[in-house]
């Protein structure tokens, strides 16, 4: 065996040993837990429950209304800030069905099986703020087998958002 061939054989041998050693790590026969700084943080893992709230924490928003006490009263005065915010939220959440002026002429009305009511009509004007608040909160369920209704917006809006929307709706109802 010439020195040349011997040198190539040794080089190949070292290469093969290195490759096999790498495979031991690749297939986790030797498993080393490398520290990854992104893993060590408070976060939700896939398929885990959300973390529980700390003890003695309070809801930031407070209660929305007192149960079984009749229609809740509107706690937010209809000032300029409330109306401005109410207009933004109304056009975001309500206008697609009820129209930008609340006339029941939103852009998707033609595809609805039951037309949304004119919010500036007399029966809606007669509703108290608290009744409208609970409609926005819980939506309208027409009952089993009946068509129509309205989705609940309690997950999309804060409590104060809903009162702002009602304040803006009242300003639309002014002649």
């Amino acid at each position: 065996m010439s020195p040349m061939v011997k040198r190539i054989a040794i080089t190949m041998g070292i290469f093969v040993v290195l490759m096999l050693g790498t495979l031991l790590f690749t297939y986790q026969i030797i498993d080393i837990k490398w520290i990854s700084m992104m893993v060590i943080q408070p976060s939700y893992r896939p398929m885990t429950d959300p973390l529980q709230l700390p003890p003695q924490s309070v809801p930031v928003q407070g209660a929305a209304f007192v149960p079984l006490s009749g229609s809740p009263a509107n706690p937010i005065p209809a000032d300029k800030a409330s109306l401005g915010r109410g207009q933004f939220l109304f056009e975001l959440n309500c206008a697609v069905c009820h129209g930008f002026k609340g006339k029941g002429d939103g852009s998707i009305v033609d595809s609805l099986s039951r037309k949304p009511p004119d919010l500036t009509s007399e029966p809606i004007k007669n509703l108290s703020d608290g009744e409208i608040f609970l409609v926005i909160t819980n939506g309208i369920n027409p009952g089993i087998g009946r068509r129509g209704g309205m989705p609940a917006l309690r997950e999309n809006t804060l409590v104060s958002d809903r009162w702002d929307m009602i304040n803006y709706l009242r300003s639309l109802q002014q002649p």
Partner: protein
Amino acid sequence: MKRTLNFLIPLLLVILVSACYPSYTNPVTLNLPTYVPAKNQNVSLAAIQTPAPNSCLVRAVNLIGAWVKAGSPEKDPFNFDSVAGKPCQGTFEADILPLFIQANLWYAGAPSCRTCHNADIDHSYVRMDLSSYQGILAGQARESSNTKGQDILGGGNWEQSTLYSILSSGQMPPEQPPGLDPNGPLVFAGASK
């Protein structure tokens, strides 16, 4: 000498270039809130009224039943018994109508009846108006706001009426939580005789 220059010239260049950039010795601080205090002003207690001292505690469905059995009078008072068996007297305006036009009464967060069953017959569900005395007597499935439909009060026979079967079976108000009393919530109404 040449080696010193090879080291110094890049160093000077780095100092020159870095001097052209603004210094960040004053870091930008954001006013992030670290603590959000509880805001309880979202609840107004203004609408909650204390019941009159001599008013009677009664189940809502039984109260409507007593009114229907008395011939559903609009102005005249009618008699009913409280849950304690005490004889009491009420009127439509003060004791029956609020059951139809008050939200958050049949259960926590319940809609009022007139939310869906209002005077706009064309948009009202089952073409019924529960927002007024005339509307309640006119019944359901009305052609227009001027005509009468099917009677919902059973013609004075409360146990056979549509309103009783819908209310006591828990179909309405919709989306009731389980475990409610079939005779409705306890309400203060009327006055003891």
